[in-house]
């Protein structure tokens, strides 16, 4: 009994902890945003950075408000998002199909392993000159870059996912004589799905980086090109307003996919646990 009593005081304060933990995330990020905004407002005003290179946040926001009324911004944004989306979809579909195929056939896996390990680390940016030579400076070049970068992210995750299949689940499917397609659709695909989502999320952010980079370097119309033009014409406030837009785009992409993941993977232990804690 003594021992039990002794442990009790230690346990009691632990009980209300979840409530405190639940409240903290709501305030903490706001504090972070406010601090960052203050820094972005004050640092430029101190004159630490020479001249007009770094405008204060308030004027950047004002500029952004002005730009929001301009169709040019929305058109550029539309183009960037289109390049991003088309590239991402192609990368994901190709990554999933090739990944499942390689994952299912051990010989294919052995043959491709070294090639994958060689091609995967090549930064897409290094391919920009080659892509321009082959595809020109249009929309396709951006898409190709995104497909190249995103494909590996998805492929590697799908390969992990297919490997993660539970031997008992696999034996169950085999003993009930599931067809190859039945096994892919009802056992392998659901097992790999959490990995696929991770791959898509990684690919989505990489794709955004490359969509902007492609526009900056190649000059394809889009937000990246607007940033480049603003910079070369000395419109730093406008440039930062556009940078802010890309940041917002990144956040939207990430949260969007997180929500989708939760909705689709309701059965998965990681989602189950967080749903239970809520």
């Amino acid at each position: 009994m003594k021992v039990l009593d002794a442990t009790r005081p230690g346990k009691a304060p632990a009980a209300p902890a979840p409530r405190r933990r639940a409240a903290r995330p709501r305030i903490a990020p706001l504090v972070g945003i406010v601090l960052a905004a203050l820094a972005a407002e004050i640092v430029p005003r101190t004159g630490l950075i020479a001249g007009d290179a770094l405008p204060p946040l308030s004027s950047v926001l004002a500029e952004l408000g002005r730009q929001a009324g301009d169709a040019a911004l929305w058109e550029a944004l539309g183009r960037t998002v289109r390049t991003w989306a088309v590239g991402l979809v192609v990368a994901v579909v190709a990554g999933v199909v090739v990944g499942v195929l390689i994952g299912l056939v051990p010989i294919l896996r052995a043959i491709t392993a070294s090639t994958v390990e060689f091609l995967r680390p090549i930064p897409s940016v290094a391919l920009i000159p080659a892509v321009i030579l082959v595809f020109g400076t249009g929309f396709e070049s951006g898409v190709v870059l995104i497909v190249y970068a995103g494909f590996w992210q998805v492929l590697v995750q799908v390969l992990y996912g297919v490997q993660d299949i539970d031997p008992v689940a696999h034996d169950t499917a085999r003993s009930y004589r599931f067809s190859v397609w039945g096994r892919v659709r009802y056992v392998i695909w659901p097992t790999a799905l959490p990995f696929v989502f991770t791959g898509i999320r990684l690919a989505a952010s990489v794709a955004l980086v490359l969509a902007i980079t492609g526009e900056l370097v190649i000059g394809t119309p889009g937000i990246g090109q607007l940033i480049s033009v603003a910079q070369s014409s000395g419109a730093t406030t406008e440039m930062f307003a556009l940078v802010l837009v890309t940041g917002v785009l990144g956040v939207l992409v990430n949260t969007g996919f997180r929500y989708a993941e939760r909705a689709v993977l309701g059965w998965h232990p990681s989602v189950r646990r967080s749903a239970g804690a809520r």
Partner: protein
Amino acid sequence: MTDMVSVKGLNKVYESAGRRVEAIGDITFSVARGEFACIVGPSGAGKTTLLKCLAGLLTPTAGEVLLDGVPVTGPPPGMAVVFQEYGRSLFPWKTVRQNIDLPLRQKKLPRAERDRLVTDSLGAVGLADAGDAYPWQLSGGMQQRVAIARAVAYEPQVLLMDEPFAAVDAQTRADLEDLVRSLWRSLGITTLFVTHDIDEAVYLGERVLVLSASPTCVLDDVPIGLPAERDQVTSRSTSAFAELRTRVHRGIQDAKAGRRTSGAAA
């Protein structure tokens, strides 16, 4: 009675780089149509290897398995397996009904018949209301009931069970034993039940095969002459039960001591 399952000179050797492990030495036995046979052996006796060879999930090194006279070369039609790890055998991304339905879809049964089989089998295992739940929302015992329902709905000629109750608590275990026993009596499916639990084997089976330690052979073949109507309390306290239990237990002791010949221990 004709033989439903017939195992002849089964031998299984696992070979990997520089290592050769003979899991199953030489196993020969047969199980009659509609019989309930339990297979017991000490741990590491190759029970799971034997069951996987029976299920067509592993290819034997030598010898053969016949199912209703047809050699088993892969998972045969008309066989259902209930695994010990119910949590991993049921698909967590499917509801209970969908889990039972999936093998029936693979069998290409018409929808109406599938619905009937799923409903009937869920009723038979006492889970008529749990169909829309996900397996992980159920207790361990209920999950294993779902796995049994899935096997029963498949309408197999042979039901293989690999230590199905090793991971549930004692009371749930007793309930599940009675469930399996009553399902067998009402459906008459030829059942092979692998277990390491001597009492469970004697209580459930019409016959108990005692395996030796690895490399495995059959040490003893014990007919269980208990009445068909069995009860957890009264059946287990009869002197006949105690005698059978002693005989099987002695066999297991011998197996652990390393006896290999299948001498008549009666």
